[in-house]
Each structure stands twice: as structure tokens, then as C-alpha cells.
């Protein structure tokens, strides 16, 4: 009995000290972690909208999307983070779009776990730059083996067709969703 109480007291004491110190560290770290996340999102928003100086989150959407403004507070376009399935796991992108949503300004990959050396080519300039000034009035398409011939086409990476296809699909889904939500709003 005496032994059991001793055990309980020791464990209880360790538990209290551990919990107390953790909540102390947690209180210190939580605002910093939140600030980091915010900074990261902000950086990505401006990365795909070179002219943007400020942004504003669009409310009442089933997903995240941002309107961005230049230094004169004029509305210059949208930044749309969107995710979907890649070759091995989730891919998360940030897409910069023009005000009418019919032009892609730039595309950036935020998170991915594609095959190193093959699928990870989606992170490299030659692939990402293809998306600059792409016409998105109709869904964008991909071609394989030959350079793109239309203004809504990109060339898939050799050896990473699935990753390339996945990115095209994610962008198309995202734009479609945003168009539905935003254009409907304007009609009202």
C-alpha cells in the first residue's frame, strides 16, 4: 500500500511538472508557429502574383482563395491554393490567376512527395514557367513528346507524366471551383 502511494505520487508529480512545463513552452511557441504559417502563405500568395502588394481572403468559400491588390489597391487577380493527388501523395499548389480567371499568371508547388529526380522536376523552372500566361478560359491540357501548340497546353515531363497530369488536373479543378463560386457571386 505504502509502495503504491509512493508510485502514484511520483507519477503524478512527474505528470504535473511535465504538463506544466509543456503548457508554458506551448504558450510561447503557438503565436510564433501561427506567424510562421501566415508568413509562408503570404510568401506563396505574392510569389504567384508579382504585382501584388496586399491580399484579402475570400469569405464564404468551401476552400481557401485570396484576392490580391496592387499598391493602388486595385484588384489585380486571384491567388488560389489548391491540392490534389499526385503520383505518390498529395500535391499542394498555389496558382495566380487574372481578374477574369481566364489567364494563369504563375504557378508554384508548395508541397509534394513525388519521386526524387523524376516527379520532383515539377519543382523546376522549365516546367513551372510553362504555366505562365497560360489561357485558362477552357480547361488546360497537356501534351507528351512534342512542344505545346495551343495557348492552353503544357508539355508533360518525360518520365513523370503522371505528376504532370496531376498538376494539370489540380489546376483545372481549382479554377473550375473558383469560377463557379466567383462568377455566380457576380451574377447576383
Amino acid at each position, binding site marked *: 500500500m505504502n*509502495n503504491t502511494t*509512493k*508510485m502514484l505520487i*511520483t*507519477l503524478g508529480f*512527474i*505528470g504535473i511538472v*511535465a504538463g506544466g*512545463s*509543456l503548457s508554458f*513552452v*506551448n504558450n*510561447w*511557441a503557438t503565436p*510564433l*508557429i501561427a506567424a*510562421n*504559417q501566415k508568413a*509562408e502563405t503570404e510568401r506563396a500568395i505574392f510569389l504567384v502574383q508579382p504585382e501584388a502588394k496586399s491580399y484579402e481572403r475570400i469569405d464564404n468559400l468551401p476552400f481557401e482563395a485570396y484576392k490580391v491588390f496592387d499598391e493602388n489597391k486595385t484588384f489585380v487577380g486571384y491567388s488560389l491554393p489548391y491540392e490534389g493527388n499526385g503520383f505518390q501523395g498529395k500535391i499542394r499548389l498555389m496558382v495566380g490567376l487574372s481578374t477574369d480567371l481566364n489567364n494563369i499568371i504563375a504557378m508554384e508547388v508548395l508541397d509534394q512527395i513525388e*519521386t*526524387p*529526380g*523524376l516527379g520532383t522536376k515539377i519543382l523546376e523552372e522549365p516546367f513551372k514557367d510553362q504555366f505562365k500566361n497560360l489561357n485558362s478560359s477552357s480547361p488546360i491540357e497537356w501534351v507528351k513528346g512534342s512542344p505545346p501548340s495551343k495557348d492552353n497546353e503544357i508539355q508533360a515531363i518525360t518520365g513523370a507524366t503522371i505528376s504532370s497530369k496531376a498538376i494539370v488536373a489540380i489546376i483545372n479543378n481549382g479554377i473550375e471551383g473558383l469560377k463557379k463560386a466567383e462568377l455566380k457571386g457576380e451574377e447576383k
Partner: protein
Amino acid sequence: MKKQVTLLKEYTKGLWEINPVFKQVLGMCPTLAVTVSAINGIAMALATTFVLVLSSLIISIIRKLIPPQVRIASYIVIIATFVTIADLVMKAQFPELSKSLGPFIPLIVVNCLILGRAEAFASKNTPVRALFDSLGNGTGFLIVLFIIGSIREILGSGTILGFHIMPLTFEPWLIMILPAGAFLTLGLLMGLANFYVDHKKNKERESIIEKFRSSKQLPTIETEA
């Protein structure tokens, strides 16, 4: 009474003699998982060392107060607390690193190295000795992670700590940054370490035999003469 070893020895034994990875074969999961680059290896090893040193120290200080029946549970709570602190600090101060190490920071809790040192050393020795022992083991861990991380980074992406060092014509060996590369690198390194140890042992044995022979030779010659 066991012979007391010097504090320096307590530290240096972790570097090679009881190196956590090569000799104790402990803490393999992070060794393999995060070593795609040298910097990841260093960060992981530093986080592990932080947890290892602080929990060893605390456990050693309160070792006489903990009833033996609940010691493992107490150790686990102490270790988990320090791991959470490490995790939160990484997330707050080094978000990039924390992202690339992913769930492997929380998994330091189950790194057998820490519980192993707590049970085998810290629970039986004074805080000062525990401090040196854990620092030594941490350094040993750091060295191995740095070596594996460097090898994989140099061969897998042609860089070291982010700097290009391989000639431009060098085609990176993709396999090195894939999971398979981790297993192969560690396997080969461990084999090499064993080879070196065997080689040294053989040499020592031979030199002893040699000494023995030469010490015997003299008297035999004398008697013959």
C-alpha cells in the same frame, strides 16, 4: 567496486566504442529516414542530442526517488516532454527544417537510443557522468548522421550542405535519395566499420603473439647455446 573511468572516457566512448548506430544498432529509423541531406542529418542529431542530454540529466538526478516498478513509465513521460519541447521550438524557430524532418521529430520518443541510455546508464550513475555519457552518445549519433547525410547528398544531388561540389557533368545517383539508398549506404558503412574493427583486432592479436614469441625466443636460444 567497479573501477571509475575518467569523465573524458565517459564522453569519448560514445564516439566510437559504443557508437549508437554502428555498435549498439539503436535509433535506426531516424538514421535512415532523414539523411537525404547533410543538414537534415545534423538537425535530427542535434534534436536527438538535446532530448538525450536533458532527459538523461533529469533521470539521473531523480533516479533514487523513482520506485523501480514505474521507472519506465516515468522515463517515457520525461522523454516525451522534452521531445514535445524540441518539436515546438523547431516549429517556432526553424519552420523549414521542421517541415523537412516531418513526423520524425515526435518519433524521437521511441528512439531506442534514448530509453536505452536512460535505462542502461543514467538510472545507475551520477548526473555528471550521465551528462558526459549522453553528450558522447549524442556526438556519436551526430557523426554518423552527418556522414550518411553527406554521402547521400553528394552522390544523390551533387551538393553538400546546399553547395554544388560535383562537376556539372556528374549525373546524380537518384537511388541515393530514395529509401533504398538509405538502406544500402548504412549497410555498406556498417560493414566497413566491422571490417575495420576486425582488421584492428587481428593486428593486435598478431602483435601480441609476435611479442610473446620474441620474448620466448631469447631464453630458448640461450638454453640451446
